[in-house]
């Protein structure tokens, strides 16, 4: 069970994500953005939160064009797993691996607080450790987390059961209260909240642990 965590200039949750993967029993490799290939045998790629390339142009836009992101796209294209958190979610939408885009928060403010999330589907390697409808508490920390997609895309996400998490109280104006979505093959998850910041009793909450443990168990048995 091997996870790779991509590190861009400006990433700041890369180590937290590595620690969360490790705590769930995974081997972790850190991968610098200038690398053009992922380490041999990587099962899942984690794209961490932060401010890749200073959020220049648009959040995640420059990172999406980096050499490593081409191999992340290849990995996902082969059916590999990828988890993008916060800025990582923005990168995944900019690469086109997930539909939609993340806009400036409707209230214009950067928001850093723990929010309630409803688990909308337990049908994924990431969410199988939760019950459908379960409410968990995970921190958010973002300025551009307002999920936008056109009506057809939202309807398709709903119809295909690809909305992973919704906010119990929408903090940022996201359409359909969306906090996280899955790819068509359910192996790519993008989410604005930070499960890696609620993965140890020292964090003040452990609701994110089940995501990493389920992922580790699922991929190990696959």
């Amino acid at each position, binding site marked *: 069970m091997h996870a790779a965590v991509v590190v861009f200039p400006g990433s700041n949750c890369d180590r937290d994500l590595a620690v969360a993967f490790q705590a769930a029993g995974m081997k972790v490799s850190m991968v610098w953005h200038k690398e053009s290939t992922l380490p041999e045998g990587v099962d899942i790629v984690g794209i961490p939160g932060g401010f890749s390339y200073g959020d220049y*142009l*648009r959040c995640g*836009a*420059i990172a999406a*064009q980096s050499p490593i992101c081409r191999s992340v796209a290849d990995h996902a294209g082969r059916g590999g797993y990828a988890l993008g958190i916060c800025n990582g979610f923005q990168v995944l*939408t*900019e690469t086109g691996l997930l*539909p*939609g*885009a993340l*806009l*400036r*928060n*409707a*209230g*214009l403010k950067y928001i850093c607080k723990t929010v309630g999330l409803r688990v909308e589907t337990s049908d994924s390697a990431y969410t199988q450790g939760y019950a459908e409808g379960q409410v968990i508490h995970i921190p958010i920390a973002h300025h551009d987390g*307002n999920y*936008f*997609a056109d009506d057809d895309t939202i309807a398709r996400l709903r119809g295909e059961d690809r909305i992973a998490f919704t906010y119990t109280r929408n903090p940022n*104006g996201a359409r359909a209260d969306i906090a996280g979505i899955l790819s068509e093959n359910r192996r790519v998850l993008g989410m604005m909240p930070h499960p890696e910041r609620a993965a140890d009793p020292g964090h003040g909450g452990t609701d994110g642990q089940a995501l990493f443990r389920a992922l580790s168990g699922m991929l190990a048995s696959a």
Partner: protein
Amino acid sequence: MKARVHVMLKAGVLDPQGEAVRHALGAMGFDGVNGVRQGKVIELDLADGTGEAEVKAMCEKLLANTVIESYSIEMQSRETA
């Protein structure tokens, strides 16, 4: 040759920054503004032979996110720039 690329949020995409600007203008007494949309202008200094088709490809691939943004390209020769 220079190119000026205008990038705007598409109609129908909420522009909270534009809305905040409109609100501020109203508060300052500028009552005659029904709406504000805020975008960005990107100026490209092009090498000889780089044409509009290539600038369009740049817009599609990087300069604009066509999920949420529209763009327009203004090509300017050096003499008029």
